């Protein structure tokens, strides 16, 4: 009996020892797993962006584009994020919404720009979306909601255009889990502080929107998909209050007023 137990234990330990030994090898880079995943993400990003490009109108007004671009560039350069990896698109939509898509596509609706009283508020939302991109939340959410097999079949052209459309729509109209949202909020505050942008403006934006939430819910997509705005504003303030940084404004008040004027006229 003792012999059998010893033999059994040796067999089990042999299994775990081989596993432990094999774990030491960096299989994922050896088998280029990351490269395949990156390729899938790249294709998905392009596919979803195509859907929006076809069905919506992109705002290419140089004043607005360059203003938003300078906000993104400021956040990226201060946080050592490759600026090229974030592809910003401004869409003519009344909804107050912004969302991230795979491969760094970041969509901002003109409704959101109009709702932001100053560039810092818009920066806050943009930083939050960049955080989702950097923390790989977009792919995580997609895999969870649609499944990897469906995502891969989309990139190989074996999936109907309806599924692609629906998934692209889901990205703009549904939230991440609460945990991921909070993670992105905190990361966004870090980004804002590093780029010397006052995070309080981001919190204010959330407060303001939480108050109007009950009045107009039709166009508040970004808020309705990001629940508990007040709670979020509170932990943002809480997290950023001890940080002693001298904040700078990114765009002049004049430029911001011009942008809003332009958008209202359009």
């Amino acid at each position, binding site marked *: *009996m003792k*012999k*059998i137990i010893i*033999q*059994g234990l*040796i*067999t089990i330990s042999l*299994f775990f020892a*081989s*596993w432990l030994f*094999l*774990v030491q*090898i*960096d*299989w*994922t880079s050896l*088998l280029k*797993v990351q490269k395949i*995943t990156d390729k899938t993400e790249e294709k998905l990003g392009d596919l979803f962006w195509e859907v929006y490009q076809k069905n919506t109108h992109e705002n290419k007004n140089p004043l607005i584009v360059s203003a938003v671009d300078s906000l993104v560039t400021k956040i990226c350069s201060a946080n050592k994020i490759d600026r090229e990896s974030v592809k910003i698109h401004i869409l003519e939509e009344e909804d107050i919404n912004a969302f991230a898509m795979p491969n760094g596509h970041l969509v901002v609706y003109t409704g959101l720009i109009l709702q932001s009283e100053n560039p810092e508020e818009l920066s806050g939302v943009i930083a939050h979306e960049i955080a989702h991109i950097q923390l790989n939340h977009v792919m*995580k959410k997609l*895999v*969870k909601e649609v*499944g*990897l*097999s469906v995502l891969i079949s989309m990139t190989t052209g074996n999936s109907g255009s309806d599924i692609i459309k629906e998934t692209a729509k889901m990205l703009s109209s549904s939230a991440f889990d609460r945990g991921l949202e909070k993670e992105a909020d905190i990361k966004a505050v870090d980004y804002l502080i590093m780029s010397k942008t006052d995070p309080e403006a981001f919190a204010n934006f959330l407060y303001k929107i939480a108050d109007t939430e009950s009045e107009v819910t039709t166009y508040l997509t970004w808020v309705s998909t990001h629940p508990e705005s007040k709670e979020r504003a509170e932990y943002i303030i809480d997290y950023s209050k001890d940080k002693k940084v001298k904040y700078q404004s990114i765009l002049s008040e004049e430029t911001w007023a011009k942008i809003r004027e332009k958008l209202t006229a359009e």
Partner: protein
Amino acid sequence: MINTAKFDYEPTEHEAEKASNSYLMSLIALIVGLPLPIINLIATLMFYVGNRKGTYFVRWHCTQALLSQLSMLLINSYGFWWTVSIIFTDETITDNYIAYLITALIFNLTEFIATIYTAVQTRKGIHISWWFYGSLTNLICKSDI
């Protein structure tokens, strides 16, 4: 790992064939049911149930085949459900996962080779006792005499 032992008696031609079949059963099931590890076990279990009242030699080898399948079931099921969770949930492919698959593959391959060898030898009436499983079978399977 595998040693040729002396059996209590000389098995007859018919017995040797039946004993060898219990290993063949698990081999065929392995090929058919590769993605679903449970199929191997069901096939071997069915053969075991059918032969548990057979002669000592046949019973002994049925039991050894079944026991080895049981441990493979554990290893393969874990790998199977891990793969399923990677495909359908937000679980990702890690070094840990790949290392597990390779370890499982090595163990499956070893078992596969051992099974083929044992099937051939038992067919000739030679008694083959595996490391650990052989002793375990001795404990479970008692001679009628």
